[in-house]
């Protein structure tokens, strides 16, 4: 290969090294003194010469090709982010409606059993809800941070805490430093539009696979398109509810309710706790999905704006360089002409 290059370009090389009339190419070709290594070196030098010659003839200005390519890619990225923003915005409208409707599911439970985030129990299960996809700002990190804080609060010598992780993104963050505490991870939740059946089956799956005294569900509550509040919803196990009710306090009013039918209070409470968990999960998953879309919308909005700014700056640089080269050429022509006439 090297020899071929050498032969092809030999003539030029010879004229470069020895300007005399000696036929350099023939000399080099015939000589056995030129080893394989030398010919390789020569071919490298020759390619270098070749590259020098590849420059456009008479180019005296910096090439604007790089800037043009950069502008093109920034423009494409901007198109993508704009499209993502549109998609998120149109999805958000439907999900927001459903989310606001689903709030009616947990409110009666909170009225009846109250929300008791400070209850101190032995077995804590922290259910962290996050998204499967990224590019949605900091909502996943906030719920992970919140969950870790809850974990610290609820793990000690006599009590333990476990994570149940929903969504790919929170899983990735937990794997880094607290993978020992993960009990179950659930993904691919949003392949089809979220519905109650799906979330209730999921809640059932969680209930069957973990032992708990208190389930603490962490999610981002949707406030507005730009505001999401990391929220904890606590669901207590029936035993703990009964214990707390006996101890009085907020749950003390539970005894004033009359129970119809032949069921015992324990049975009712167990049914209630299960149903409460699935309803709270449904709302949590929806709230988080809604926050995800809102966060994605604002994230994509700001990134399209940034891409626009970047494009403006690049265009300015590009035009300035172009105009500078035009001006220089004009000056050269004019001064050349005036030198001839004057």
């Amino acid at each position: 290969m090297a020899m071929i290059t050498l032969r092809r370009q030999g003539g030029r090389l010879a004229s470069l090294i020895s300007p005399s009339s000696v036929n350099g190419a023939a000399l080099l070709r015939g000589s056995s003194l030129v080893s394989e290594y030398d010919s390789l070196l020569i071919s490298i030098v020759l390619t270098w010469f070749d590259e020098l010659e590849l420059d456009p003839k008479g180019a005296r200005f910096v090439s604007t090709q790089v800037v043009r390519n950069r502008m093109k890619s920034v423009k494409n990225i901007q198109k993508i982010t704009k499209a993502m923003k549109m998609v998120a915005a149109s999805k958000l409208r439907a999900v927001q409606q459903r989310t606001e409707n689903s709030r009616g599911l947990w409110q009666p439970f909170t009225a009846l059993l109250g929300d008791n985030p400070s209850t101190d129990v032995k077995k804590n299960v922290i259910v962290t809800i996050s998204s499967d996809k990224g590019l949605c700002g900091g909502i996943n990190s906030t719920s992970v941070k919140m969950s870790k804080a809850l974990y610290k609060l609820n793990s000690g010598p006599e009590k333990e805490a476990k994570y149940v992780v929903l969504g790919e993104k929170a899983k990735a963050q937990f794997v880094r430093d607290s993978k020992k505490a993960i009990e179950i991870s659930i993904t691919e939740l949003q392949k089809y539009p979220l519905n109650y059946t799906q979330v209730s089956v999921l809640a059932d799956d969680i209930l069957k696979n973990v032992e708990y005294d208190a389930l603490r569900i962490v999610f981002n509550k949707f406030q507005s398109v730009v505001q999401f509040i990391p929220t904890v919803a606590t669901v207590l196990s029936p035993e703990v509810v009964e214990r707390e009710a006996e101890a009085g306090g907020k749950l003390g009013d539970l005894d004033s309710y009359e129970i119809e039918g032949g069921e015992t209070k324990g049975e009712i409470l167990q049914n209630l706790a299960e149903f409460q968990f699935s309803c709270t999960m449904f709302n949590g998953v929806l709230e988080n999905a809604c926050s995800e879309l809102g966060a994605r919308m604002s994230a994509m909005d700001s990134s399209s704006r940034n891409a626009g700014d970047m494009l403006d700056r690049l265009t300015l640089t590009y035009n300035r360089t172009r105009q500078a080269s035009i001006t220089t050429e004009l000056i050269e022509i004019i001064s050349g002409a005036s030198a001839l006439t004057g």
Partner: protein
Amino acid sequence: MASNAAVPFWRSAGMTYITYSNICANLVRNCLKEPFKSEALAREKVHFSVAKWVDGKPQKPRGGGGVRGL
């Protein structure tokens, strides 16, 4: 017709209230007339994948959903 006396039976069959109410809801959905019936049934798609973790390592994930075959 769900009766109040049924609770111990489905409970001893290893069902939770959630499973029980899902079966009931599915029954109701099946009682709808067309086209509402297929609409309602198509809406309730169950899909997710669950992985149990042992000692910081995920076990083989499996598809979730106990009432999908109903």
